[in-house]
């Protein structure tokens, strides 16, 4: 069974002056059990709209979605989900501990287990010292961490996180990556949105890119990275006088003893053949590739 199944999901908003906004257009997407999926898109692409539809906060204009085989129009579908809203807000008159307990109770957790899990997640997210204080006095980063804690407390199978790294300092970001990798190791499914490619590259199995409400690409992160290799920068040991073109490729830069050549993938064999024939020493070979960021930017444009 897939963790999340989205079929033909569309959402149209009616904005000011009755203007129709197609926030999401016919999205088809399946997230397999145990998969970490990064939902990448620029601001306003429709990421949060998709997530709110899946969480039953918005009603689709057309299409449907299921979580662990249950249609999202049913509240029971959310028993299997830990959800972190975008820029979350929680009852600010409650303390983190009270709120996490409230959430666990909604998931019908047994009270001793809930107590133990509450303690675990509060410590894990570095909220232990602040746990008794009302959340009114929390910083943005702390609220974000409460959001993660309340998504983790009932140890669900599926995690839907809307920009989990936003509002966090580098330590917090590293912690979130750690948590996601940990969930992956335990066979959980994670669907998270972000506009930062680096987040995706480090933790995801697959990535989907959404632009203006349309899913424009879905692929495994490794194959994007592999297909992104464009060429090599090769440093040869050659004085300025010796640095001739090899296989028709001119040196990019020359220093006293080393010359640098840029060689596209297709010309690599011919170039190296000539280098070997002339007996020139190779100092360094660097791979030049488009990273996820370039891939992402090329799709968005």
């Amino acid at each position: 069974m897939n963790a999340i199944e989205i079929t033909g999901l569309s959402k149209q908003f009616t904005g000011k002056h009755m203007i129709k906004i197609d926030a999401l257009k016919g999205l088809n997407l399946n997230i397999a059990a145990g998969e970490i999926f990064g939902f990448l898109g620029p601001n306003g692409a429709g990421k949060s709209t998709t997530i709110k539809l899946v969480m039953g906060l918005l009603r689709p204009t057309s299409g449907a979605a299921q979580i662990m085989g249950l249609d999202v129009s049913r509240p029971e579908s959310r028993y299997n989900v830990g959800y972190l809203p975008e820029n979350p807000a929680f009852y600010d008159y409650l303390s983190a501990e009270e709120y996490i307990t409230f959430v666990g109770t909604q998931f019908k957790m047994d009270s001793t287990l809930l107590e133990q899990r509450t303690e675990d997640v509060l410590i894990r997210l570095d909220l232990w010292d602040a746990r008794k204080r009302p959340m009114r006095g929390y910083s943005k980063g702390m609220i974000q961490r409460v959001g993660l804690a309340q998504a983790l407390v009932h140890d669900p199978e599926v995690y839907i996180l809307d920009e989990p790294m936003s509002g966090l300092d580098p330590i917090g970001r590293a912690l979130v990556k750690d948590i996601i990798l940990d969930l992956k190791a335990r066979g959980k499914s994670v669907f998270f949105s972000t506009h930062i490619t680096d987040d995706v590259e480090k933790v995801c199995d697959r990535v989907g890119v959404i632009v203006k409400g349309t899913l424009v690409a879905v692929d495994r992160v490794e194959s994007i990275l592999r297909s992104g290799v464009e060429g090599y920068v090769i440093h040869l040991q050659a004085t300025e006088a010796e640095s001739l073109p090899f296989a028709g490729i001119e040196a990019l830069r020359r220093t006293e003893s080393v010359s640098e050549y840029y060689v596209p993938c297709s010309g690599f064999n011919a170039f190296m053949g000539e280098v070997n024939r002339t007996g020139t020493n190779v100092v360094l070979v660097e791979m030049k590739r488009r990273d996820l960021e370039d891939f992402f930017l090329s799709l968005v444009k």
Partner: protein
Amino acid sequence: MFSIIQTTLKGVFRDRVFQGIMALAVFFLFIPSAASLSMRQVTELSITLSLSLISILLFILALFLGATTIWKDIERRYTFSVLSLPLSRTTYLVGKFFGIALFMLLTALFLGTVSILVIKFSSVLYPPSRPILWSTIIVSIFFDALKYIIIVAVAMLLATVSTSFFLPIFGAISTFLAGTITQQVYEYLQSQSAQKAVSDVVRNAAKLFYYILPNLSGFDLKVHAIYSIPLNSSGLLLTIIYFFVYTGILLAIGSILFERREMK
């Protein structure tokens, strides 16, 4: 459901505005001295003033809590985190309502206790001409609380569709005013003189309103309490049944509307 009720109650008790409203209860302390200025019927006046003060406080609380709780949850974006939990919108709405209704009853209990002390104090200093019927006073406060719980339900129903708190607040105030006089208007329209003076269209429209709007006159037992008039128990039972049916219908409509509402 229970944890929603509990959370709602915590929210009310920790709210500054509520604490401010409750501070108005200090006016109780002035009732005996204010009443004594009248020189005669001091105890009757104390009862009147106490019951009126309770009504005013409960009315303000009903408007404030009924109109703002849901609106605040939406406005502050708490609904994203709460409504994405595996609970239905109906559970959320009804849980909130029970939390507030419970709070109204607790407040009525507290204010009622204070007012009984105040009335007792007045009656010792200025013995009344007729014996005080304490049970009638208590019943009258209880029915007053029920009346304002209906107003809470009206405000919450309006809040399920409204994006601001203006509609719930002013809608609830209008409903309260109309609901207080609806019985009198109805009775007038049934009278001989009205049959001639009022056209059929107006009379039918007024009748329609009579059935839609809450009929709050049955909940007003102040006169009984002040002048120690015995209560009619079958009338009270009917009023209680009316209370449950009417709030039940309001909540049912509110749930249907709120289930359809989108959290944007």
